[in-house]
């Protein structure tokens, strides 16, 4: 298949997505639209983790930390000074926090950029660590971010967090960023850099022996991943309109890790599919947990059941289908056509 054709098909797919969103915006109820929004954000987050872990082999458990950074920066920028005046009850905000104000696009970008900068900063010492040590150290980083958020009331409003963050993150913003994320990561992986990243993942020692500056490429992948994690966090903050330090617990990273593992480490199309599937599954499982109101008497739901099913699913995937949905394969237009032509013959 020629390159031009692929480009056209990709554009058609984006247009189709746009059409679908337009229809959805007009016809779906708020709950369904919320799920669509979550799908887009989860895909962004999972793609960025897959870049770090699936394609570069860096086992990072720090995603919640980057998301928190993006979420806080973006929220501070999009809330109006008056609103912040009302919000910071514990202690007044720093002046620059109080007066900072920016449009949504700039705020999300800023969230991503700060997350990326901090990612590069912590990546410097941490990326020298291998495998599981990196995992536990990045997990520690995320926890430290959370503790800091709790203890800097003049920046983050402490444990109370932010409420009433403007809800700019609609379908268009979220899916727009989702497409941008996908595009950037695909371009990155198709370039020579992508080959180097995969080489590092497959055999670091060999890559080093070939003269690759392993550390620099690891840092690059980690920073780009952190950027999109920050963007995802920023969008999530505006979508949910409230954030607090408790939101960025390890559970959040766990959910994203689950999407990446289920979709297949090293498969972007797998991540997209798993992102859709798991977001829907998680919402659907919410039914099990919600209390049922019966003649004013509340039958308790079963809290925790959702995560029981969810974590069981992760264990099952790891035990019985370690490569996830797609393994390392990708879904191309070509492979799609092959399926259809086989069907015809």
């Amino acid at each position, binding site marked *: 298949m020629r390159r031009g054709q692929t480009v056209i098909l990709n554009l058609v797919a984006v247009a189709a997505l746009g059409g679908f969103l337009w229809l959805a915006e007009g016809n779906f109820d708020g709950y369904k639209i919320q799920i669509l929004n979550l799908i887009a954000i989860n895909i962004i987050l999972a793609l960025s983790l897959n870049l770090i872990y699936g394609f570069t082999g860096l086992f990072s458990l720090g995603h919640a930390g980057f998301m928190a950074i993006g979420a806080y920066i973006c929220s501070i920028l999009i809330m109006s000074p008056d609103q912040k005046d009302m919000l910071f009850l514990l202690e007044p905000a720093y002046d620059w926090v109080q007066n900072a104000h920016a449009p949504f696009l700039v705020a999300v970008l800023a969230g991503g950029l700060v997350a990326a900068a901090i990612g590069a900063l912590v990546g410097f010492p941490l990326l020298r660590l291998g495998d599981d040590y990196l995992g536990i150290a990045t997990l520690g980083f995320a926890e430290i971010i959370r503790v800091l958020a709790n203890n800097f009331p003049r920046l983050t409003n402490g444990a109370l967090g932010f409420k009433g963050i403007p809800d700019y993150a609609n379908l268009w913003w979220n899916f727009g960023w989702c497409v941008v994320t996908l595009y950037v990561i695909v371009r990155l992986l198709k370039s020579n850099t992508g080959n180097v990243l995969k080489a590092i993942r497959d055999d670091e020692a060999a890559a080093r022996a070939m003269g690759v500056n392993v550390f620099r490429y690891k840092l690059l992948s980690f920073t780009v991943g952190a950027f999109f994690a920050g963007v995802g966090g920023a969008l999530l903050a505006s979508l949910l309109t409230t954030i607090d330090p408790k939101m960025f617990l390890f559970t959040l990273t*766990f959910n994203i890790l689950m999407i990446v593992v289920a979709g297949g480490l090293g498969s972007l199309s797998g991540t997209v599919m798993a992102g859709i599937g798991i977001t829907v599954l998680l919402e659907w499982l919410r039914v099990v947990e919600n209390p049922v109101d019966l003649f004013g008497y509340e039958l308790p739901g079963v809290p925790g059941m959702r995560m029981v099913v969810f974590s069981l699913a992760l264990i099952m995937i790891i035990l019985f289908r370690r490569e996830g949905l797609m393994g390392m394969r990708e879904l191309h237009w070509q492979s799609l056509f092959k399926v259809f032509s086989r069907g015809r013959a």
Partner: protein
Amino acid sequence: MNSATFIQHMLNSLTLGSLYALVAIGYTMVYGILRLINFAHSEMFMLGAYFVFWGITLANLPWPVAMVIAIVVTATLGIVVDQVAYRPLRDAPRISALISSIGVSFFLQNVAIVFFQAIPREVYRPQWLEDPIIMGGVRVLPLTLFVPLLSLALMLGLIWIVYRTKAGLGMRAISKDIETSYLMGVPVNRIIALTFGIGSALAAASGIMWALRYPQLQPIMGTIPGFKAFIAAVFGGIGSIQGAVIGGLALGFIEIMTVAFFPDLAGYRDAFAFVLLIAVLMFKPTGLLGERLEDKV
């Protein structure tokens, strides 16, 4: 700060430190043998405490009996987790087992939320641990002596197993070289199961005593102490039992003393350990007593 308060702080850090140490031993033993960070270990800590609670509330057992039963049940559970969730992954890439252990951790935690409910529960404390005794002008809770002493006894028992029994010899052999151990006829899977059993038993004992010290039960109570204990294991040198003990005591000491001398930093309490972790990993990744693990090419 006068000497009486200082002695109390010392006793407190000894208590906290030995609790960390008991959990850290489990992490370090499993890591030494399988190179696996067993995330589910912190749930054994939590479950141990809950089993005592239910033993007392539902079956009216006296506290010591409930404790022994809880430890045995938790140890069994640790073995079951290994057999179900880790054993099939022995030949898989290391990270697979790690992800599996994260899954098990979340699974157990949420099973606890489902069955035990998320509301914090008050813990029964035997009276003989509560009445303070005066020793040389210092008011001491028997609890702060009981915890380090019982921990010490358990650790001595462990060291006896590891260095004086055949099973312990097997453990040490496997942690040196698992392949060769197979060839030399060491019953590797049985020894690994035993390791998980012992580790979980110690974690349960720690959780039970933790519940005496901080008398509230919650399904998520294991997470933070678990992380800290793991950090203690890394600090002491992962793979080394003595290292885990030293690391645990050191961490307990650092935590209590920092808060005692700099009360302003109390809010950052949970971050100390992680800062320590990152510092250790950067400057001395093998920890205090750890052996260097070569990357095999």
